[in-house]
């Protein structure tokens, strides 16, 4: 095997996995609330969804603090450079067994395509879900906050769009995880923190 690099720190791994669990659970309960199927029953699904939402809020408070204080937020600064190289790798090079054009390091743990995708999740999908989710949670306070003109339907549609995008991200993310040099190498890295290249 190649060299081992310590990429994902303890808190980061904890953050990733608890967030993953919460988001999966919220998709499960959320699409039930949306009427896609019946699993927990509407009332419990709503209650679970809310508990998970507040847990995620708590987690994010720690995560934001961690990113800001450790400077880890820099890993999400997009670099347009080499994006095409990465894209070309995934669309053709990978099938020819070419080596991955990106070597992760502690200073640069995400490839440019990852940076762009995660930034997209951070800047678009998350705010959409978060803002509509908060509005949903505080539906009762709308008029007190001067939002009486807002329609629940628009908030619900926004929340649903966010959920579908998150689902699409989730599916792709799960798949791409398996495309490392072995199907489980990347998942191991996110568990142990050590990336083998």
């Amino acid at each position, binding site marked *: 095997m190649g060299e081992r690099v310590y990429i994902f720190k303890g808190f980061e791994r904890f953050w990733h996995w608890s967030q993953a669990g919460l988001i999966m659970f919220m998709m499960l309960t959320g699409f039930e*609330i949306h009427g896609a199927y019946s699993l927990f029953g509407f009332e419990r699904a709503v209650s679970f969804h809310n508990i998970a939402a507040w847990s995620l809020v708590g987690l994010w408070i720690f995560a934001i603090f961690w990113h800001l204080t450790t400077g880890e937020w820099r890993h999400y600064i997009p670099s347009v450079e080499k994006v095409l190289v990465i894209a070309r790798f995934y669309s053709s090079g990978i099938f020819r067994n070419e080596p991955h054009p990106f070597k992760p390091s502690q200073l640069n743990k995400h490839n440019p395509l990852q940076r762009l995708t995660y930034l997209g999740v951070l800047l678009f999908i998350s705010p959409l879900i978060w803002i509509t989710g908060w509005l949903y949670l505080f539906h009762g306070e709308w008029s007190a906050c001067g939002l009486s003109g807002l329609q629940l339907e628009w908030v*619900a549609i926004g929340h*649903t769009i966010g959920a579908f995008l998150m689902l699409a991200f989730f599916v792709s993310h799960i798949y791409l995880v398996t495309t490392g040099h072995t199907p489980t190498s990347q998942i191991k890295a996110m568990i142990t923190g050590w990336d083998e290249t």
Partner: protein
Amino acid sequence: MGLNSLRQSAGCALAVLLYLFSVTTLAADEPKPLKLTTTADHSKFKELQREFQSGPEVTKACLTCHTEAAGQIHRTKHWKWEHLNPDSGQTLGKKHILNNFCISIASNYSACTSCHIGYGWKDANFDFSVKENIDCLVCHDTTGIYKKPPGLAGNPVIKDMELPPGSGKIVKGIDITKVAQKVGKSSRDTCGACHFFGGGGDAVKHGDLDSSMAAPDRELDVHMDATGLDFTCATCHKTSSHDVAGSRYNPTAMDKDGVHIRGKVDNSNPATCVSCHGNGPHKKEERLNQHATKVACQTCHIPAFARGGVATKMSWDWSTAGERDAEGKQVVRKDDKGRVIYESRKGTFTLGENVKPEYFWFNGDVNYTLVTDKIEKSEGVIRINWLGGSPTDGKSLIWPVKVFRGSQPFDPINKTLVKPHTAGNDDTGYWKNLVWDKAVETGMKDAGLPFSGKVDFVKTEMFWPITHMVAPKENALACVECHSKNGRLAGIQGVYIPGRDANKLIDTIGWGIALLALLGSLGHGLMLFVARRKHQGE
């Protein structure tokens, strides 16, 4: 010693005196073992210590002390059976409207006015100004023996009599003197004597008021629960000056006035849920208070009506009335539970127990199709009354409603509904003769209305907002009852209900994107798998 014994005997004498004094005062002011809720025992009143021969005699006696009561009564809907709707300008009340049950009181007074709070309203010429015609006892009886059988124009039976005349059935006279001496506050029984039996029988009309509400358990009505809170009707229908609050001619659909506070001038309806519970009664779940800005309390807290074991009528088809058997006699058919579903004199019925209401936006406006209004059979179903309301008028809430559907006679030439003469032991009463044109002619003549001589039938609907039979909170509707695709509010427009509603386009695109991501991943993965196998082979 002498002084001592003198002092002793004086002390003894004083003690005896004090004792005697205390005994006599105690006898006069002896506290009752039970805390009475009234200061008057009417049986002790000289005015009532005599034999009464009639209702009006009793009323006269009542009015000797309650000098202003008649004036109060004469103003009320209970007395006039008349209500002017200030918003629509329609003159309503039983005296004027028709319904799709027994239809109308015109020409049927003696039967219908057994539920009038008066004596002797036997025809259209009843004098509403006579004080003695007020029936105090029907509301203030506490004995339970006071009865006003149909056919006697609101009079009770004092001496044994044959009723209906010629039937051979003897109705026993009641001890009206005893009733008069035992008067008290109104009760579920006194109100219920009429309101439980509206439409001609137990549970027929309202669906949320029937004889099971005389002594309901907690499951049936959490407020009236006879062994719990034990509300009477008047606890909510708070009455002053004999004017009973809360009427379905001018209901309060959305109460923005909040809780009634003692001493504060408040002319809003005291019979609403909000007048006690306020507008934010859900202490643990703010979300439910938010629901209450769109949904009436009744919608969640009355999950079904006719829950007390007595079936309510859900439809009445007069057009099938008139059958006779081989011997020419009237027919009665019952279902397997022994409930009447067909009568020659009335037509076909359907009944229901534990009925889920239908739901509508309701703002408190109730309008009627009156006998003078033109109707077109081609319009389909004629609404005898209809509820105003919309999701956007700011005054409406989603209300549970019993929709009573029927088919009833109308005049196809004059294009009006009609008031037939039904009850009555005479040549034209429908219930006896089963002949429509004669019955309608008599009824319309009595009402002073034109009739072409032709009778046809038209489908009708009547809307009865549901507000009684409030279940305990643990039996309130579960979320999923409405938050589901084909839930109770499936037909309600103007609100986004999560679980029921979804934007089709967004859903299609959304699932499409997720599916594409999946297919893309699978395709990519397959290619990768093949490529790697190939590479390994090399």
